C-alpha cells in the first residue's frame, strides 16, 4: 500500500479479506458439525442466496421490489418441472432454471424503468401475483394449489446422492450460494458495479456523467432475477416439492426483511440476515407456532423505528440521542 490513490480506494472493497475464506470454510463445515441441523443450514443457504439477489437490485441499485418472489418461484417451478419431465440431474436443472428466470427477468426489466417507487412496488408485486395465478390455474401442469409433487432428484454430478439427513443438500446449496456469491461480489466491485452505485446514489448525476442508466438497471435486474431463480431451484431440488407459496407476497416481504436486518448494499448482509432470520423463525415458531408473524411484525416495526444501525450496535443506544422503544 504505497499510494492511497482514489482508484485503490475504490478497489479496496474488492480485495478478499482474511476472514472471508474462513467464513466459507465454516459454512462448509456446518453440516458436519451440526449433522442434525443440516436441513436448517440448507434453508439458510437458499434464503441467503435469495437475499443476495435482492441486494443486487435493492442495495446496489436502489430499486424497491416487492415482487422478487416472482423469480424465485419461476426458478423453483422450472427446476421442479425440469426434473419431473426431462431429466433428474440437479446441476442441469439448476442451469435451466437460472436461464429461464433470467429470461423472465429480462422481460420484467422493461417494467421497472419508468415511474416512482410506488409504481415500481406495484409492478413488481403484480408480476409475482400474475405468475402465482398462472401456476394456480394451470393445475394439470403445475399441480395447482396442491403443489408440484414427486420431484425426484438424481445424484449431484452423478456422484453424491441426496441423503435423508439433508447433508448433501446442504453442501450442494452452500456451494451454489458460494459460486453465485463470488460472481456477484466480482460484479459489484467491477466498474459496472460502480456505475450501479452511482445510479443508486444520484440518478441524475449518473446520467450526467454518461452512465446509461436505463440499460444498467435492466441488466442488473435481469442478473438478479437469474440469481433468485437459482435460489428457487435449490429449494425445489432439495425439498422435492414446489408449492404456490413460492410466489407469495410473504416471501418477497421476508426476503426484504432479511436483507434489511443484515444490511443493505453489502453482499454479506443477505447471508447474515438469512442466518439471523432463520434462527429467529425457528426459535419463535417453536414457542408460538401460530402467531410467530406477530413477533416478526413487532421486530420489523421496532427495527425501523429504532433504526437498523442502532439496533445492530446496541452500545450506541446510550450515546447522545436516545430514542425509539423496544
Amino acid at each position: 500500500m504505497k499510494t492511497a490513490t482514489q482508484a485503490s480506494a475504490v478497489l479496496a472493497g474488492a480485495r478478499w479479506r482474511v476472514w472471508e475464506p474462513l467464513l466459507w470454510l465454516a459454512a462448509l463445515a456446518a453440516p458436519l458439525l451440526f449433522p442434525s441441523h443440516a436441513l436448517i443450514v440448507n434453508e439458510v443457504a437458499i434464503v441467503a442466496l435469495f437475499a443476495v439477489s435482492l441486494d443486487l437490485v435493492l442495495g446496489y441499485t436502489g430499486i424497491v421490489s416487492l415482487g422478487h418472489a416472482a423469480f424465485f418461484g419461476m426458478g423453483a417451478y422450472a427446476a421442479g418441472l425440469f426434473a419431473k419431465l426431462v431429466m433428474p440431474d440437479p446441476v442441469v436443472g439448476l442451469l435451466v432454471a437460472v436461464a429461464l428466470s433470467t429470461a423472465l427477468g429480462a422481460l420484467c426489466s422493461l417494467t421497472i424503468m419508468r415511474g416512482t417507487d410506488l409504481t415500481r412496488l406495484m409492478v413488481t408485486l403484480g408480476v409475482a401475483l400474475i405468475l402465482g395465478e398462472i401456476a394456480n390455474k394451470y393445475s394439470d401442469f403445475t399441480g395447482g394449489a396442491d403443489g408440484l409433487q414427486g420431484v425426484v432428484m438424481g445424484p449431484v454430478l452423478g456422484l453424491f446422492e441426496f441423503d435423508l439427513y439433508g447433508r448433501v443438500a446442504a453442501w450442494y446449496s452452500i456451494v451454489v450460494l458460494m459460486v453465485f456469491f463470488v460472481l456477484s461480489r466480482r460484479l459489484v466491485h467491477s466498474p459496472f458495479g460502480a456505475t450501479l452505485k452511482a445510479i443508486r446514489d444520484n440518478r441524475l448525476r449518473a446520467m450526467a456523467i454518461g452512465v446509461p442508466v436505463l440499460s444498467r438497471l435492466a441488466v442488473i435486474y435481469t442478473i438478479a432475477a437469474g440469481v433468485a431463480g437459482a435460489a428457487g431451484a435449490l429449494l425445489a431440488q432439495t425439498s422435492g416439492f414446489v408449492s404456490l407459496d413460492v410466489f407469495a407476497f410473504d416471501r418477497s416481504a421476508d426476503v426484504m426483511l432479511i436483507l434489511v436486518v443484515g444490511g443493505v448494499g453489502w453482499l454479506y448482509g443477505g447471508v447474515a440476515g438469512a442466518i439471523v432470520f432463520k434462527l429467529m423463525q425457528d426459535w419463535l415458531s417453536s414457542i408460538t407456532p401460530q402467531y410467530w408473524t406477530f413477533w416478526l411484525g413487532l421486530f420489523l416495526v421496532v427495527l425501523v423505528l429504532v433504526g437498523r444501525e442502532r439496533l445492530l450496535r446496541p452500545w450506541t443506544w446510550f450515546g447522545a440521542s436516545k430514542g425509539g422503544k423496544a
Partner: protein
Amino acid sequence: MLTILFDGIAYGMLLFVLAVGLAVTMGLMNFINLAHGAFAMVGGYTTVLLMQRLQVPFLVCLPLAFLVSGLLGAVLERTLYRPMYRRPHLDQVLFSIGLTFMAVAAMDYFMGSSQQIIQLPAYLKGRSEFDTPLGLLGMGHYRLFIIAVCAALTVALQFILARTRFGSRLRAAVDDQRVAAGLGINVNIVFLSTFAVGSGLAGLGGALGTEVLGLDPTFPLKFMIYFLIVVAVGGTSSITGPLLAALLLGIADVAGKYYVPKLGGFIVYSLMIAILIWRPHGLFSRLGGKS
C-alpha cells in the same frame, strides 16, 4: 350483462371507499402505508363484534366502525407514523408491513381464524330484477345500498376537498408542505385529521364490505393489493382518479371472474401493469403535482 356491470360498480365503489384514505395518505404525506387494510379490518371486526355480542343494529354499526378505526388511526398517527414521514420509502414499506403482520396475528389470536359472518337486516336482503331493453338487470338490495352510501360519501368528500376551508388547506399541504406551513396552515393538524378520516373511511369500507368481501384475519394482506392498485392506477392528486380507477378495477374484476373464471385475478394485474408502464404516475394524475 347489466347485472355484471351493476355488481362491478358496487364492488368498485366499495374498493373506492376502502382505498380513498390510502390515496390521501400517499398523495398527501408521500407515505407508502401498506397497513391501510388493517384499519379496514378493524372496522369490519368492530361491526361484527357490535352486532354479534351487543345486537347493535347494522346501520348504527357503520358510523361506529368509522369512529373506532378513525380514532385508532389518529392514535397511531401521533405515536408511530409521524416519525416515519421523513424516512425513505423502503423504511415505510417495512414499517407498515410489520404493522400489518402484527394486526393479522393479533386478530387471529383474539378472534380466531375463521371467516366472520354478519346478519344483514331484512330490508337489505333480497334483490330486484328489471327487464330493460338491454337485458335483465338484477340488483341486490345490499349492493344498491353500498352504491348509495359510497356515492354520498364521494360527493361529500369532493365537496369537502373542493369547497371548504379545510379542503383548501389540505390541497395546499398536498402541493407544497413547506409553503403551506409558511402560510400559517398547521400542517400537523391537517395531516392528523386527514389520516384519521382516511383510516375511518377504511374502517367504514371494511364494515360495509364484510358481507361482500368476507372478513377473516388475512383481510389486510388479501386486499392490500387491491387498494394499492386503485391508488397506483388512479394517481394520488385527486379523488376522481382513484374513484374511476376503483370503478374500472371493480368492473374488470367482476366481469373477468364471470366471463373467464380460469384467468381469475390475472386480468386485473395485467391491466394494472399495462397502465402503470404506460402512465407511471397514474391514469389521472395532474401535471405538476408531487410525484
